[in-house]
């Protein structure tokens, strides 16, 4: 290690120390935004509590952008992004980040792909140089991919094939949705992984890894003007590139209940249900998405949520039960209910009980006291979120990738807080009919003698 490389570190420390006192009070700062001429959007949030920083770049390319036969390519490319560029050999990216004292990883979702490094703030310029380099100079070799494909297949086995409840989820998405690529698993179908080629990856990379398709988020012990200057230096030289038109791939309406059973080694049955519901289109649009968000909290947001209170504690029909709603996202909206039946109770009884809870809200609305409890929780968690640089960075990136602005976070919270009992009642009455419902149950199989189908599931439409 070069000694010289340490000097910038020391200098930056001194600057930082001087800056602390007056910045201590600067809390919950808003992010600064700038878009470079090549289209890269840069967001910076200053948090000077410690001399560390999160550097995260998000590409608006997730599994929702994949086409049949090439599922899993977004995630496979994410793996290959660590395999070297024209000037940085395979594995060197990680070695350099590690040598900076950094931690790094990457992730792929239905909506986007993200790469992040947590590093001492003095090393920001160096990781930017590395990240900018792999935005355009990636080298994709067939040999390297032959090995990495096996890694990805092992990941699929670990996360999905051998996990009964993951398979239920995979089946649910594939059954609830027909036209939307949201139906595909992020990691990809096994057969698509096995037949994937370097050309598929090359296509993906050339199509989506462009500055105009990315948002850079930096949170930590930095100043916004410095970060903008660094971003200009490292990313600003990358040529802008056009993006292909994105097909809407709208999901047609659902006109009847759908159901499936998954058999897998397990002890206990499991129930997963999904209703087609609207998602947030505009922050200042209809109240419905916010009301659905509030409904999910009323049902299962905390220990006194109705599912736990009524189904786990009072009726003893469930050992656990949950509700989920993705307020934002690039694909169709689903409101999920899930649960594990208590000993001696069936999934049919549990399903009935879950439906009754929704019906009760639809008939009676909710108590003001319940809403108030949830509002308090939202506000408190906004404060607590400020303790983690990573979670602040993830929030900024997530909003941008879902098509909103990082600046919408507060307004979004305001609107959730403004939801009334009547709003919740209205969405519970409107969206939870059988015609928009998909139900998948786990039929547990004994460990001995269980034979899993190696690939392919019934119920794919």
């Amino acid at each position, binding site marked *: 290690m070069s000694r010289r490389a340490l000097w910038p570190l020391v200098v930056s420390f001194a600057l930082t120390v001087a800056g*602390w*006192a007056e910045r201590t009070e600067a809390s919950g700062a808003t992010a600064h935004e700038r878009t470079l001429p090549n289209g890269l959007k840069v967001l910076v949030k200053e948090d000077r509590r410690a001399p560390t920083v999160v550097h995260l770049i998000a590409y608006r390319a997730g599994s929702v952008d994949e086409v049949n036969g090439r599922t899993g390519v977004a995630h496979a490319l994410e793996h290959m992004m660590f395999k070297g560029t024209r000037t940085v050999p395979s*594995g060197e990216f990680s070695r350099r980040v590690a040598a*900076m004292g950094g931690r790094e990883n990457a992730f792929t979702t239905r909506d986007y792909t993200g790469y992040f490094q947590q590093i001492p703030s003095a090393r920001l310029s160096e990781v930017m140089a590395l990240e900018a380099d792999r935005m355009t100079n990636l080298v994709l070799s067939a040999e390297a991919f032959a090995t990495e494909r*096996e890694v990805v297949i092992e990941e699929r086995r670990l996360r999905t094939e051998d996990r009964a409840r993951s398979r239920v989820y995979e089946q649910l998405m594939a059954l609830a949705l027909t036209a939307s690529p949201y139906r595909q698993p992020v990691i990809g179908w096994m057969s698509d992984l096995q037949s994937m080629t370097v050309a598929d990856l090359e296509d993906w990379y050339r199509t989506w890894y462009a500055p105009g398709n990315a948002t850079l988020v930096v949170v930590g012990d930095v100043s916004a003007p410095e970060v903008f200057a660094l971003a200009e230096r490292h990313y600003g030289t990358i040529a802008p590139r056009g993006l292909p038109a994105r097909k809407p791939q709208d999901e047609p309406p659902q006109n009847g209940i759908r159901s499936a059973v998954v058999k897998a*080694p397990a*002890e206990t049955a499991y129930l997963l249900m999904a209703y087609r519901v609207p998602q947030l289109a505009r922050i200042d649009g209809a109240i419905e998405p916010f009301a659905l968000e509030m409904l999910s909290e009323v049902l299962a947001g905390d220990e006194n949520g109705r599912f736990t209170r009524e189904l*786990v504690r009072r009726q003893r029909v469930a050992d656990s039960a949950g509700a989920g709603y993705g307020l934002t996202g690039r694909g169709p909206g689903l409101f999920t209910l899930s649960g594990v039946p208590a000993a001696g109770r069936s999934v049919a009884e549990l399903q009935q009980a879950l439906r009754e809870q929704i019906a009760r809200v639809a008939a009676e609305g909710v108590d003001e006291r319940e809403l108030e409890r949830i509002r308090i929780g939202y506000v408190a968690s906004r404060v*607590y979120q400020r303790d983690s640089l990573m979670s602040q960075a993830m929030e900024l990136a997530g909003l941008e990738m879902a098509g909103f602005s990082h600046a919408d976070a507060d307004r979004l919270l305001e609107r959730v807080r403004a939801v009334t009992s009547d709003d919740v009642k209205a969405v519970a009455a409107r969206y939870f009919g059988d015609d928009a419902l998909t139900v998948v149950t786990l039929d547990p199989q004994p460990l001995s003698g269980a034979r899993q189908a190696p690939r392919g599931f019934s119920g794919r439409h």
Partner: protein
Amino acid sequence: MFLSSVHSLWRLLRAGLVLGAGLVALPALAVLPIESWTTASGARVLFVRADAIPMLDLQIDFDAGGRLVAPERLGLASMVNAMLAKGAGELDEAAIAERFALTGAGRGGGAGDDSASVSLRSLTSEPQLSRAVELLALLLAKPTFPQPVLEREKARVIASLRESATRPETLVRRNFGALLYGEHPYGRHADPETVAAIGRDDLVRFHAAHYSARRAVISMIGAVTRERAAAIAEELTRGLPEGTDSPPLAPLPSAPGRAERRIEHPASQSHVLVGQRGIARGDPDFFALTVGNYVLGGGGFVSRLYGEVREKRGLVYSVSSYFSPQIQAGPFVIGLQTRKDQADQALGVVREVLERFVREGPTTEELAAAKSNLIGGFALRIDSNGKILAQLSAIGFYGLPLDWLERWTDRVAAVTLEDIRAAFQRHIRPEAMVTVVVGAPPAGASAR
């Protein structure tokens, strides 16, 4: 100008970082700003003031872990901990949950082999903080352990134990623990039968004996004054039971020799654990082993195991090694998952990498890279209140010196190639590893 304590800590760390990198040695710039005292009731307190966010994190660690539970009642330590919030004073579980929620506070807890803990994250605004603390104090001092709730919770725990017993990751962990520790508490786990045997009296007795102030350590970080922190610590421990003295540690049985267990499972992957007993907290070899293990299998995407098993051969998604120091020697573990027919190949590579590492130790370049990461990245271990709380808790509960963090980077910097070789050779014997494979290869060894 006001500098919060965390910021003074940073100044100090800067000195450590530069020292660690081998440049001019600077004198320590500040004392470590962990304030420590003992409450009137006898609980030890570790406190760091951090004013940037209007919140307080606190955790109480009790010497009330699974090690204290009779073999026929395993699961009791966790059950006592979980039941604290299921009834206290005049309040039932719904009222407790409601009151916490109305303050905006989050509550956590759990029990391990060594300790049981209760944690709270609250806003520092009033009356929220006072109410949250008052409520937590009530839970700790006056749990009612209502019988019907206990029966329900037992049923839920039993169902979840049955479910997890079908999963390869659970089976491999349990069998590994049993081979490594035998009947010692570190090798045991709760079963449906032992949970079914737990009675309300067991909970009452366990709480009265072990949830006492003199067997508690309170860690706190947040935007309160030391005076306020002291008052909170008093309030939380004032009503705790008198308790008994800490029971002696169970002697560790003699270390097992080479042992291997293969278990059939229908999953497509084998789950593999390889390891041995490692070290206890406070072991003088801790830093040599930490730096060495970074090279071997602890260092994320750059370790030897990662390189050989994943990067070169594509056998796994994840492979890593770690030491888990506890009151007594906790395990050293290498873990991986791979397609069944590759398990023996992966295992062969792991053994080869381990043997060579123990024999030769790291290279000069590897040692430099490890130090560069551990020292350069030390800031990332304590750059949030949540992370600092975890450090305070470990320092407090395991009785590490208060300058533990202050000296951490120096100690890493001082580790030599010979230290690592010697430490690994003292603690790790590749010829006597314990191996468990769940999901034995289809045509492989016989099952048991």
